[in-house]
């Protein structure tokens, strides 16, 4: 039973990270129907910016807490700025182009960003400072869950609650929902679609940066390639939950995290990804739009 709990909590941590990144995919997809392959790279850039900023701040001998408080917002701002710029350069000119063209542009952008960081920084793995504080009361539970894992789960939950509220209650949130339902209609009723799309990229990128900083601080190292695998997994999670649906991305992330954790624990980690993808195939066969996705009617 304890073993089960350990695997459950491990899966919860991993799933929370997937969910944070998956939100970016799902929001962008919901609005412009684009699989933003460069999203994993945004996550990586968020982590790298955090590494650089915290390195500079550490020079001044500031305590860990204040470094985290300054680093996280800066990483979020930079990631958002990258998301915003990428949309402007690589996707906006492609609106109205054949559906697959932006996808290829996204793949190109992903290759570009990876190599940009590789060249401007380094190919090596860099140690990432443990920015998340160790909580004294977690000592006793360290066998099953430690403080950084707790932070990840709590932050993910808080961010998701915040996002849900934002989409539900704010003006921009309403505009986003309207745009995702019908872009042309949204324009007719006075929604500035360009702004909505930019905002979507900005928010999605910000969430990815939060995920990047948390996980980098948890595992203690980063390099230019971390975005790729995280990106693919998060994308899988988004589709699993029903792409375009915000609660779906959260659920998809958690289901994927748990599947991997239990597959490793009870079967073999050799095939953890096989289990993850097999689950995806199975779910999509029985629910072709994902767990929480809506089956849309199709017009001729």
């Amino acid at each position: 039973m304890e073993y089960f709990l350990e695997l459950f909590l491990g899966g919860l941590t991993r799933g929370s990270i997937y969910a944070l990144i998956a939100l970016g995919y799902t929001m962008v997809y919901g609005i412009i129907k684009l699989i933003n392959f460069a999203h994993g790279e945004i996550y990586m850039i968020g982590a790298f910016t955090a590494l650089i900023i915290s390195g500079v701040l550490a020079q001044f001998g500031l305590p860990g807490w204040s470094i985290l408080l300054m680093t996280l917002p800066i990483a979020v701002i930079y990631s958002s700025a990258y998301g915003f710029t990428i949309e402007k350069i690589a996707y906006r000119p492609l609106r109205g182009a054949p559906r697959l063209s932006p996808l290829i542009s996204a793949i190109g952008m992903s290759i570009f960003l990876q190599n940009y960081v590789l060249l401007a920084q380094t190919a090596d793995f860099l140690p990432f400072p443990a920015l998340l504080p160790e909580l004294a009361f977690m000592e006793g539970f360290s066998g099953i869950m430690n403080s950084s894992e707790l932070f990840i789960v709590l932050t993910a939950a808080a961010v998701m609650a915040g996002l849900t509220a934002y989409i539900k209650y704010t003006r921009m949130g309403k505009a986003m929902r309207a745009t995702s339902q019908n872009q042309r209609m949204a324009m007719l009723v006075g929604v500035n679609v360009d702004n909505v799309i930019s905002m979507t990229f900005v928010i999605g990128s910000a969430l990815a940066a939060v995920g990047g900083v948390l996980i980098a601080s948890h595992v203690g190292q980063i390099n230019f390639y971390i975005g790729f695998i995280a990106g693919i997994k998060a994308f899988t999670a988004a589709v699993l939950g029903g792409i375009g649906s915000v609660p779906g991305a959260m659920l998809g992330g958690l289901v994927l995290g748990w599947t991997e954790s239990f597959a490793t624990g009870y079967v073999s980690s050799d095939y953890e990804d096989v289990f993850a993808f097999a689950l995806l195939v199975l779910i999509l066969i029985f629910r072709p739009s994902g767990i929480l996705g809506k089956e849309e009617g199709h017009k001729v």
Partner: protein
Amino acid sequence: MIKKLTSAVAVAAGIGLIGIGVAQADEIVFGVPGAHTGDLASYGLPTINAAKLVADKYNAKGGVLGRMIKVVPQDDQCKPELAVNAAMKLVSEEATVAMGHICSGATKAALPVYGDSKIVVMSPSATNPPLTTSGDYPNFFRTIARDDAQGQLAASFTIEKLGAKKIAVIHDKGDYGKGFAEFAKAAVDGSGAATSVLFEGVTPGAVDYSAVVQKVKHSGADAVIFGGYHPEASKIVMAMRKKNLKIPFVSDDGVKDPTFIKVAGVFAEGVFATGPQDSSGNPLYAVALAEHKKAFNAEPGAFFFNAYSAALALMNAIEKAGSTDYDKIVKALKTEYVETPVGKIKFDSIGDAEGVGFDVYMVANGVFVQAE
């Protein structure tokens, strides 16, 4: 637009074609094929640095045999098909010798191409045993230990010195790590004194390894042998220690890397890793390290010292052979000892480095020291 793009492509193609004809007769073309982009770039790029440092050193003294050394890196991303392309590119640029490739798979794919053109290849990092033991590749040499030798050593150390009875063997599913782990597992099971209770591969680059760590804990193992590179090793060790799993962690040459200690920090203390004998006490090791820091203002990356040694060995062989003739270089490699950061080495009849004993190291106070 299309016109512009086609002409751009044509220009690029033109540059590529011009690139072929630049090898001059009075230069020694030193090919450095390996992963320079993509997910494994961090293992390939340090070898370019090593090659450049060694080349600069020789060139400052007037070159080898009075000829300047020209380093020509060729990227293969550790993919076999690109490795073949890189090899052919080096052949067409009339490379004298090559140091690479990084991954065993890519090396195996590329070797016949070099073999056909009589080019000596020395890898700083390809550890798959058949590369030398199969006898298929007489032009191949390496400055790193074979998987089987290291796996054997790691297993016997864990059983005899650490007194482990139940050993969990983990690997990173790569050709290097899995090879090492398979040999270690065989040695553990064959020893009679201990058994392997777990044999699992982790996915490289996964966001965390807590599930695998829980599984190790659950298996009741009293030691872990890990085959793979330092990024995964440090993640696993950190997860183990954070989860209060304090059993010994024994790994391979891919982990015996300063970056491992930097990344894992205090959690690296007490980790064991096999590696070439007494390298850090070696004066040339310090020289190479200092040169790298001076030139690139950074710590050297993975396989840097193996690569530095390979470059020294190759240049020394050309110098001793007195010519760039294939047979003479091979003969020099097999007969002449050379001082390198990994020790005083020459190569045995199948191409493995001789004179490099292998030892087990332990992290103590932030450095690797020889384990008792």
